[in-house]
């Protein structure tokens, strides 16, 4: 119950102010189509430099939580998911809005998000110390395999193609080796002065997540957005509570599905929402109503995508393996404040870790309260013209990446990686494994070198890295994730035509 000890810190004026700011800002950013939670958090990182570590993390955590929930506003009122995590919400949420139940859809969506989110954060609170204790037994070989596991799992599960996912991870791992070698001091792959100090993670994250979105907005040209915001009629909140209570099966299915999926590194909220929606339909007594504007669909999808947020941070805080792309960005936010997550995080920085987690718990409740009140405003902001949005994001990306080290080199790296990532995405590559490779590369290399030194002096490299139950467990998970993904790809190929695969990919992109 250590988390209760630090609960008071969340309510200090500065911390609480940042929590409210992050929540409101996140709701508005989340409602804006094209601004994903990952990109929003990446763009916010430069604003945390001047803050204390816990304050910075509170801001980022609040933004992460509320952008996921905020995406439901545009999904319901505009039929455009604010983030990939809200795709399933669109299916019934928009239908409800067109039937004149927009307010009800928004209310049940935010209530379900808050309930799912609170459950997810409680899971984070109770699972993290247990896993952290267990992770203390990890040696260099285990940490090396864990880093590889992080890259391969996200590479195989997050991408449409296993090979391209793994290739993205390899590109990230290679980018992480650019610069001076830590042990020998040798220059590696320094082909331009901008990368002589290596690739800084924050500008790279900003570029990889923000610039492709900007270019995607450019590709739409001068066409006018045709989506109209559906006006909502007043709906008493108590009826939304009653609705949630009546649809508790969907809520339980969504919350449990989201929590479990969140714990699996690499599987994002998009999948959580869709799986929960599907399962809820199977178990529902009114399954035929799904897709026609049924509140169960909204409840299942929204509770799942917010329940995923807390558990996705468990592997990050205990093993320094981010569970999702946004968690990878949060890792970048931790690293710039000199905090390296891992098993000893709760011993070395208990105040930072627990205040951050507590703020996420309080943030879920704030997100629900503010969400209900500013949904209308957020939907209006979501209609900001694409040209304005693209220019704003580009300006923020330039200033944000420069402010990290006051270096033009970082700006060039941000833009180069961002433009390259746009083209890579068009050919089936994914940013998430590349980012994971970039972040986990130094961890993998340091532990590989350290392990090799220990092994050379003792039992030999082969024995050190390939024996012991924990090494084998990790190797088996790496192999299983790759094998499973290949099998899934083969199965998809058997039942899906090329055109269907392309259409599906286009719909999700």
């Amino acid at each position, binding site marked *: 119950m250590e988390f209760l000890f630090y609960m008071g810190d969340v309510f200090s004026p500065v911390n609480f102010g940042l929590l409210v700011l992050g929540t409101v800002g996140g709701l508005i950013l989340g409602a804006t189509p094209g601004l994903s939670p990952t990109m929003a958090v990446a763009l916010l990182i430069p604003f945390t430099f001047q803050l204390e570590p816990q304050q910075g993390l509170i801001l980022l955590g609040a933004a992460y939580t509320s952008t996921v929930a905020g995406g439901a506003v545009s999904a319901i009122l505009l039929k455009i998911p604010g983030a990939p995590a809200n795709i399933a919400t669109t299916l019934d949420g928009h239908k409800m809005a067109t039937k004149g139940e927009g307010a009800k859809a928004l209310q049940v969506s935010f209530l379900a998000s808050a309930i799912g989110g609170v459950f997810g954060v409680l899971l984070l609170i109770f699972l993290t110390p247990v896993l952290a204790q267990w992770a203390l037994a990890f040696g260099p070989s285990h940490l090396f395999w864990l880093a590889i596991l992080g890259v391969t799992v996200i590479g195989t599960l997050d991408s449409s193609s296993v090979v391209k996912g793994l290739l993205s991870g390899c590109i990230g791992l290679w980018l992480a080796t650019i610069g001076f070698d830590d042990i020998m001091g040798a220059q590696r792959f320094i082909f331009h002065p901008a990368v002589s100090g290596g690739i800084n993670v924050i500008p790279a994250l900003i570029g990889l997540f923000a610039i492709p979105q900007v270019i995607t907005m450019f590709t739409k040209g001068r066409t006018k957005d045709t989506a109209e915001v559906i006006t909502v009629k007043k709906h008493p909140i108590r009826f939304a509570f009653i609705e949630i209570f009546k649809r508790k099966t969907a809520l339980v299915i969504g919350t449990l599905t989201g929590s479990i999926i969140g714990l699996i590194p690499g599987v994002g909220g998009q999948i959580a929402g869709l799986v929960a929606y599907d399962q809820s339909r199977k178990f529902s007594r009114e399954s035929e109503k799904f897709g026609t504007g049924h509140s169960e669909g909204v409840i299942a999808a929204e509770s799942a995508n917010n329940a995923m947020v807390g558990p996705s941070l468990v592997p990050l805080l205990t093993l320094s393996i981010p569970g999702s792309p946004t968690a990878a960005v949060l890792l970048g936010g931790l690293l710039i404040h000199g905090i390296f997550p891992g098993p000893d995080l709760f011993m070395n920085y208990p105040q930072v870790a627990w205040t951050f987690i507590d703020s996420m718990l309080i943030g879920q409740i704030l997100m629900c309260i503010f969400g209900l009140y500013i949904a209308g405003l957020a939907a209006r902001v979501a209609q900001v*013209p694409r040209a304005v949005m693209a220019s704003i994001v580009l300006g923020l990306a330039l200033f944000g990446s420069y402010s990290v080290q006051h270096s033009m080199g970082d700006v060039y790296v941000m833009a180069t990686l961002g433009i390259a990532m746009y083209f890579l995405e068009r050919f089936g590559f994914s940013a998430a494994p590349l980012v994971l490779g970039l972040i986990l590369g130094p961890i993998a290399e340091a532990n590989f070198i350290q392990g090799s030194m220990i092994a050379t002096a003792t039992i030999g490299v082969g024995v050190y890295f390939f024996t012991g139950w924990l090494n084998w467990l990790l190797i088996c998970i790496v192999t299983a994730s790759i094998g499973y993904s290949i099998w899934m790809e083969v199965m998809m190929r058997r039942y899906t035509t090329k055109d269907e695969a*392309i259409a599906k990919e286009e719909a999700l992109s």
Partner: protein
Amino acid sequence: MTDLPRNQHIIASGVIAAIGTSVAYISFTQEPADAFIFPRLISSVFAVLAIWTFAKAVLGRTKVGNGISVSALRNMLPGLVVTCLYVFWAAKALGFYTATAIAFFILLTLYDPAPHTHAQSWVKRLLITAAFMAVMYGLFAQLLNVFTPHEIFF
């Protein structure tokens, strides 16, 4: 899949394969060897996967990735050129705030669906640009104390 994406896939995967094999070549030929142990490990996998992807593209077996349509390329190109000029030249040469204001205004002009013949839409673009610059200055210069390059202008 039409020929356009197939050719695009060949070019894209060819570039990746060239980078992968170059990285592997450098890793295995550079000294000191101890500094390149880890790069050798990953570049081997990188090169193999990249060549595999290239081979699949050449054989027309690429399943994912829609490539870039001509219309998307035509729409994107002006914005991309402005972005590159802004980031790689103007920001440093003119100063961050001047370059940002110019780039912001040009991008608005290029992509704003409002007609160019209406004076009102030009005033609107100018006002949006001014408001954005005020926010950026307030945030970065005043709040975060980020000293950006001034160069020719501000």
